[in-house]
């Protein structure tokens, strides 16, 4: 992303052959590749320097020394670290993340199974955050200092201060344990397991495609609580950011001009000011989304949600490093992609960035 490499070499001045956008694209791709390689490297090294024996995680407590040695060789642990890393990167490039010692299945298959669960939860959470957070933020900015502004501030403060695992625990106790309004932990009641074929892996969507209302209702009843919880945290973030973007706009000259011109307040707020913050807002929402994807670890654990966060954590505690590596790389990649997406969006559409 640095501009240092704009030297086009040779004497060809006009219409440089690799067009500018291509060069930018290549440099971007290079940046992404380096970041991801670094991600892999750090995770791999953490996994290897752990003072824990990966062999033991495979063979368990009772194994003999001979069995130990056999697995040691099978895992390729006799090779130098850097060679092991090379082999690993080579495998990853072919989509092979190794085999989970905990589930005995290929890590890629495991991730394909658990990822949709996280995606569904984070999507619903972000959706809630956007639907409630954006209007709240706009209103808070427009009616600055009013009760609605105070409310948005309170929601934000509480959201930033609440230990999510504790709130989840309390929510479960109250809404499932005492009131019985929602279904308990997990994604689906056992009787509904396997009733709808997996198409997208998103249970709500799969149930809708199949038109199976019982499954849909049960899945919804399971997802409501954790999604509201995550939604609350993204609501806190999105509403605060919306408010501050809007304030900036409402104080700007052209808004004042528009007001002077006698345009209605509604028109000024929504047609002018809000339209101008749309790109910034999308960036914020994208970040909130990415944060929920990676940050739902504790929520997933509390709600026994079979997503990638609990997958990585459980694997980590079981020293199943292949799974931890695979999961982290997938999440990291998504995070990087979302970042780049919002970055590009910002560059191309924001008038001030040009």
């Amino acid at each position, binding site marked *: 992303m640095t501009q240092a490499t704009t030297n086009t070499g040779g004497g060809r001045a006009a219409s440089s052959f690799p067009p500018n956008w291509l060069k930018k694209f290549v440099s971007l791709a290079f940046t992404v590749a380096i970041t991801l390689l670094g991600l892999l490297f750090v995770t791999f090294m953490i996994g290897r320097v752990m003072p824990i024996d990966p062999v033991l995680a495979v063979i368990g407590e009772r194994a003999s020394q001979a069995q130990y040695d056999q697995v040691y060789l099978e895992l390729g642990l006799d090779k130098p670290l850097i060679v092991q890393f090379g082999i690993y990167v080579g495998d990853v490039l072919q989509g092979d993340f190794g085999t989970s010692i905990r589930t*005995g299945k290929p890590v890629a298959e495991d991730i394909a199974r658990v990822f949709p669960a996280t995606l569904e939860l984070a999507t619903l959470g972000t959706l809630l955050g956007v639907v409630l957070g954006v209007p709240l933020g706009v209103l808070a900015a427009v009616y600055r200092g009013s009760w609605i502004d105070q409310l948005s501030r309170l929601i934000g403060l509480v959201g930033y201060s609440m230990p999510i695992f504790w709130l989840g625990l309390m929510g479960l106790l109250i809404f499932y344990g005492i009131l019985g309004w929602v279904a308990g932990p997990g994604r689906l009641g056992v009787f509904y397991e396997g009733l709808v074929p997996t198409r997208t892996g998103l249970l709500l969507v799969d149930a809708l495609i199949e038109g199976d209302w019982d499954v849909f209702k049960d899945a919804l009843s399971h997802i409501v609580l954790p999604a509201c919880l995550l939604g609350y945290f993204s609501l806190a973030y999105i509403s605060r950011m919306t408010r501050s973007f809007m304030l900036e706009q409402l104080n700007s000259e052209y808004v004042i001009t528009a007001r002077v011109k006698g345009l209605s307040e509604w028109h000024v707020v929504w047609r002018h000011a809000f339209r101008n913050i749309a790109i910034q807002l999308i960036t914020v929402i994208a970040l909130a989304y990415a944060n929920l994807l990676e940050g739902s670890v504790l929520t997933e654990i509390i709600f026994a949600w079979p997503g990638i966060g609990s*997958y990585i954590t459980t694997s980590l505690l079981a020293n199943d490093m292949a799974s931890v590596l695979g999961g982290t790389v997938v999440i990291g990649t998504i995070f990087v992609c979302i970042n780049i997406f919002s970055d590009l969006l910002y560059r191309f559409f924001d008038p001030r960035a040009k």
Partner: protein
Amino acid sequence: MRPRNFRETTMTRHTPSRTMRIGAALLTAALLSSTALTAQAETPPNMLVIAQRIDDIKTMDPAESFEFTGADISRNVYEALVDFDPMDLDAGFQPALAESWEVSEDGTQITFTMADGHVFASGNPVTAKDAEFSLRRAVMLNKTPSFILTQFGFTPENAEETIVAPDEKTLVLKLDKAYAVSFVLNCLAATIGGIVDMETVMANEVDGDMGNAWLRDNTAGSGPYKLASWKPDESYTLDLNPEYPGDAPAMKRVIVQHIQESATQRLQLERGDVDIARNLSPEDVAGLESVDSVKVVDELRGRLMYWSANQKNEMLSNPKVLEAMKFATDYTGMQDSFLKGQYINHQAFLPKTFMGAIDDLPYSFDIEKAKALLAEAGYPEGFDITINVRDAQDRIDIGQSLQNTWGQIGINVEMIVGTGAQTLDTYRAREHDIYLGAWGPDYPDPNTNAGTFAYNPDNSDEAGATGLLAWRNAWALPDMSNETLAAVVEQDSEKRAEMYRELQREHMATSPFGIMFQQIEQNAMQDGVEHFVAGGATTAVSYWVVTK
């Protein structure tokens, strides 16, 4: 929202207006969430739904499976040559796939005669060839539990000569010594003795793995059930084996859902979402007392809770110090508080109900005596040590109690909590001071514990006998090791039991093991559920006898 039994009709897909349906769905959803989303009331009558922690499953292959939950599945899916009757576990092993057996005069050869009428889920009949294949396979794959068979002298190299089926009805095992027959048969009743369907398994062989990869998440047995699905960390489902010749089990389908938290399991049970909850804390069991529709069934299991002291540590190798620590343990305090109902004070290395088990309790909580012993040992001021504990709440609680009471006699304990593998790693490397551990029998014979608590033929670091608890604690015990060896070849059962009793008393008095408790499993279930047997101290759960 009544649960349905099995889907009878497949949904026909109407294409016209999916978007409209989705819109309607969202609307309904909004309406629903504003009122109440109620949970279902009860489970279907022919389906058993269980809430349990099942994240320990690694594989379903009986030659490799060595986890508690794996044993539950194997027992219901595979049959062995001899097996336990769930309605009478105390009777010991009974004929199963083998209808009878004969021992040669020198005691080194056992000839089994196969029973008629057993059929695999594939429809293939069970023959001696399958048994030959299964046992050879277990030896040749050489996975962790293979020692249960190889201790009789079978090796991957000699398996073809020592495990032989001369015809479809006969299986001959040639042992390297004249072992007690009860010892051999008890081992064959363990998970690794499960007989697999040779034809089906070999049809799914990959790269000469004898079907090991395929059997990870598929089953090929002749038991009452077969595996329908397994989602790691989520659930497993067993369906009836249509070929099973015995009485058809009342439960057509068994679903075991992975629920980590005790409180959640209890809620699900109270709400009727599940029939049985298997990992309830003592507090949640107590909380269920006021619920009329639920009962709690106690069952003594084989798991022992112990601490052990590394004999490489000079202070801890002093017998007086060990005795002091055994007296400074609040057995009844723990048993009556946070372990209430789930562990019972037990100080011998054989669990109650095992052959030769004893109930002696020579140690009780006595701070003054412990202090005196420590002073006699030359440490009136006490000393500092560490204790390695894995990150499970009941173990951390026990660890904190030890920390507290040992602290009262001046032994200052630092607790190091780690994951299972971390603590185990330290233990196997003999780098701990004190290790707080649990030990469950591997097979239903006294040698399973004697052979690890009281057997260590070579105490050198080079021996690397990491499977032996005595070795891990660097405890050299030449006499006791010999007694343990003598006990496995004693043919007279009563004499054999007496040998174990003596061994345990000696062990209790001198060993660096502070055995504290034996587990009692408290399974809470709906009132109507009958005959749920978790397997006692010797085996695993038997779903096929359950009714509700």
